[in-house]
């Protein structure tokens, strides 16, 4: 079996806001009835996280749940556990109307860490990132520059970004350019 590598293999661009590719991450797209008890139970047992409400993410370390749409949740687990996690979802939901797919190798995860991380994102996305509107735990699917991306806040100075693996290089360079250009002071 070949060694799996992440899109940018942990590339880091240090600075006042550091851009860092997170390396491999297990990701499962799960579509179904998010109010279904069996679905909620298996999601929580895999991640230790409660099912998030609309527009929220519950993430801790490599694990978490992100609300993607009214019938879709993103299940985050350590990369090595993704295959097993998918099997557990299939076992739990067999016979019900759902769809689960391991998309770990189709995605990239990038951390944006530093004092003006909020502005680094705000410059690139058509989203309201005012501190009163977007807070830790909030999750948003939108675009960064020219490509689709989603992000959420881990804490006041840390964003976690996901995008398609094929555009990871573009997203990384875009975030680095935004960080290098410095703070705007728009939110201060």
């Amino acid at each position, binding site marked *: 079996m070949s060694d799996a590598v992440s899109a940018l293999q942990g590339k880091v661009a240090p600075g006042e806001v550091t851009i860092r590719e997170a390396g491999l991450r297990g990701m499962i797209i799960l579509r179904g009835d998010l109010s279904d008890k069996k679905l909620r139970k298996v999601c929580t047992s895999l991640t230790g996280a409660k099912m998030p409400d*609309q527009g929220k993410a519950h993430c801790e370390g490599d694990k978490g749940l992100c609300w993607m*749409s009214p019938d*879709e949740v993103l299940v985050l687990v350590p990369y090595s556990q993704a295959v097993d996690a998918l099997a557990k979802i299939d076992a739990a939901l067999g016979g019900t109307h759902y769809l689960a797919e391991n998309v770990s190798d189709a995605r990239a995860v990038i951390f944006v860490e530093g004092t003006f991380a909020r502005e680094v994102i705000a410059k690139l996305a*058509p989203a309201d990132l005012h501190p009163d509107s977007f807070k830790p735990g909030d999750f*948003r699917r*939108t675009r960064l520059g020219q490509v689709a991306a989603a992000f959420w806040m881990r804490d006041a100075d840390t964003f976690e970004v996901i995008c398609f693996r094929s555009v990871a290089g573009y997203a990384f360079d875009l975030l680095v350019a935004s960080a290098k250009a410095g703070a705007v002071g728009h939110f201060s």
Partner: protein
Amino acid sequence: MLILHCPCCGVDADETDLHAGGQAHLKREGPGSTDDDFEDYLFMRENPKGVHFERWRHAYGCGKWFLAARCTNTLEVFGTYPAQTLEPPQDIKDKITAKRPGWSWGNVQ
């Protein structure tokens, strides 16, 4: 800049997050319909300067379709509502009437 509230995920989405889907509330004509009705369904569209009802898809966001009532002249948005709605809802029509008395759209008023 046009900003529409997505009723599916609660996000205020910018035009660049969205994909326009053309006129809303079209009645699909298929086998058994007359040629004239089928032609209307395929090709004939409202093209108002003013109140309009459209389909939009939250393409970069939740991926869902929804419907919007807006003014093509001023970009004022009167409201958005679920795609599973066969005709403009009364509360949306009331909002439009408050701002554009005497408006009509096709045979809706």
